């Protein structure tokens, strides 16, 4: 079978899962950024920044290992790691601490919150808009996208070709949408200050979030519309589980972002991939208001699969939900049993086997293999 034919089979499998139809088998999306260590145990995370081409090369080799090759998802390679990570941190107006420079050689990168926005800046947003404030906050934290190394388009194209040769699905990663305004603002102010703002000046915070939603959602949806054809687009959220904030706060300050985004994406026939960390059990019912099959729920394992199945099982595909700690330090048998348990809960449709949040950089090869074998029924 050619890689192209394999990609078609895997794409069909993924599309069936996210459309809640029965695929030929449950798709497996277990891509991780530390698989390179399975090929070269002396390589460290700092090498992703120091010698990225070597890391890309051995990552590709890892995806060709027996059993691992059964995964439907492919590797994320070919981009400049530091530029990507600094841009990611800047979404929270934070900086990224980089292994080998700010951290030990084999530590994972850490987001270092800066909280550059002041209480007075709420008025600035109301007067001048969020785009103005964003530029000002970037200036305050010293983030200048123009100063980051530009992407090496020639190299990226070469890597894309190599990934295509693996015959993986093209539908395991979507275009990234802006973060929910609640998340962005809590990063801009720092979390404790933001929560105090919510209590001290709720109307002003609400006014600013409304402005941010208006500006960022339309821009994000426009980018999806004008970009390459998309099946889904991804929103990430980490600070709004139902144990984290009250339903009242969620309804007023957070959910409107989802509502506007999911509705707008639906209009252009694009699904919303919800990468929602922490326990969302108490908020899952809010997502039943959207048309069936319009979202995919991607938890970080803290929302129990039983709750997801019970509330959202008839509404959307669910990805997950092996505990990331288990694949790092558990045994293959424990991982196999965890995967079997998820399969028993989820049945034969509307499910993608994965690790909650993402596969950690120190995932053991034998544990990932155990999850794959369990999913394949071996």
């Amino acid at each position, binding site marked *: 079978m050619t890689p192209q034919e394999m990609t078609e089979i895997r794409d069909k499998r993924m599309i069936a899962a996210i459309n809640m139809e029965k695929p030929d088998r449950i798709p497996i999306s277990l891509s991780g950024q530390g698989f390179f260590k399975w090929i070269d145990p002396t390589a460290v995370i700092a090498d992703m920044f120091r010698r990225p081409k070597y890391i890309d090369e051995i990552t590709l080799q890892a995806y060709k290992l027996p059993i691992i090759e059964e995964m439907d998802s492919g590797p994320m390679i070919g981009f400049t790691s530091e530029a990507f990570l600094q841009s990611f941190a800047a979404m929270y107006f934070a900086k990224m601490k980089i292994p080998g420079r700010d951290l030990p050689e084999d*530590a994972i990168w850490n987001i270092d919150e800066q909280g550059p926005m002041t209480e007075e800046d709420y008025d600035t947003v109301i007067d001048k808009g969020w785009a103005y404030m964003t530029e000002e906050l970037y200036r305050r934290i010293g983030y200048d996208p123009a100063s980051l190394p530009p992407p090496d388009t020639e190299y990226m194209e070469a890597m894309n070709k190599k990934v295509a040769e693996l015959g993986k699905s093209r539908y395991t990663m979507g275009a990234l949408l802006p973060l929910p305004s609640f998340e962005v603002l809590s990063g801009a102010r720092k979390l404790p200050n933001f929560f*105090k703002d919510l*209590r001290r000046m709720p109307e002003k915070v609400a006014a600013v979030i409304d402005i941010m939603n208006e500006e960022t959602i339309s821009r994000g949806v426009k980018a999806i519309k004008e970009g390459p054809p998309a099946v889904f687009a991804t929103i990430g959220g980490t600070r709004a589980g139902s*144990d984290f904030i*009250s339903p009242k706060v969620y309804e007023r300050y957070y959910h409107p972002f989802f509502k506007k985004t999911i509705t707008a994406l639906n209009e252009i026939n694009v699904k919303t991939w919800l990468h929602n960390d922490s326990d969302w059990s108490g908020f899952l019912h809010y997502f039943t208001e959207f048309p069936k099959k319009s979202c995919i729920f991607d938890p970080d394992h803290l929302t129990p699969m039983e709750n997801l199945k019970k509330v959202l099982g008839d509404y959307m595909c669910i990805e997950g939900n092996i505990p990331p700690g288990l694949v790092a*330090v*558990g045994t293959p048998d424990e991982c196999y049993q965890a995967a079997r348990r998820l399969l028993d809960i989820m049945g034969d449709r509307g499910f993608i086997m994965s690790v909650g949040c993402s596969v950690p950089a120190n995932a053991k090869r034998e544990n990932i293999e155990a999850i794959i074998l369990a999913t394949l029924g071996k």
Partner: protein
Amino acid sequence: MSKKLTDAMADLNEDAVLEEVKALKAKDVPALDIIAYLQEGMSIVGKRFEEKEYFLSELIMSAEIFKEASDILGGTGEASAASKYGVFVMGTIYDDIHDIGKNIVTTVMASNGFNVVDLGVDVPTAKYVEAIRQYKPKVIGISCLLTTAFDNIKECIQTLEKEGLRKDVKILIGGGPVDEATCKYVRADHVCKNAQETVEYSKKYMGV
């Protein structure tokens, strides 16, 4: 008894808390008494959290307000002096700078009458060793949000064993990806899912 201060703390009214603390201090009310009023308010915060009237966001906020109020009185050392129970040492393990979970736990422990020694984030093993020798806690907490730092907790606990500091201290771990498998791997005594569990375990162990 300053019901006004206790209520303001319980209601997370930051301005009223700080104003009242300053007013009581100006009237020469002993710092330990003022801390006791704040702790009473924090107990109500904890109760409201258990009753799901408050959420983690309110606990985070309460931690900040409690700290600001303590600073007016000379720092959290004053709060420690007002503690009824034993010493609780806590930090986020090295190579990890997450602080929200740690701050919630230390504040809830302090407000429940423990003498809390907060080691901060990115804490090296040597600092845990030093703190155990200096403060002789019965329970310590290690927070961790990164699976890649699990080996650091393991190394820290192994070192405590080698240094002969393990037998008299219970080691609790917690954080998003931390679960029973992690607990077994790093050889901790218990994994705490939330701050309240840390309080309950510590009280039980200390025979309170």
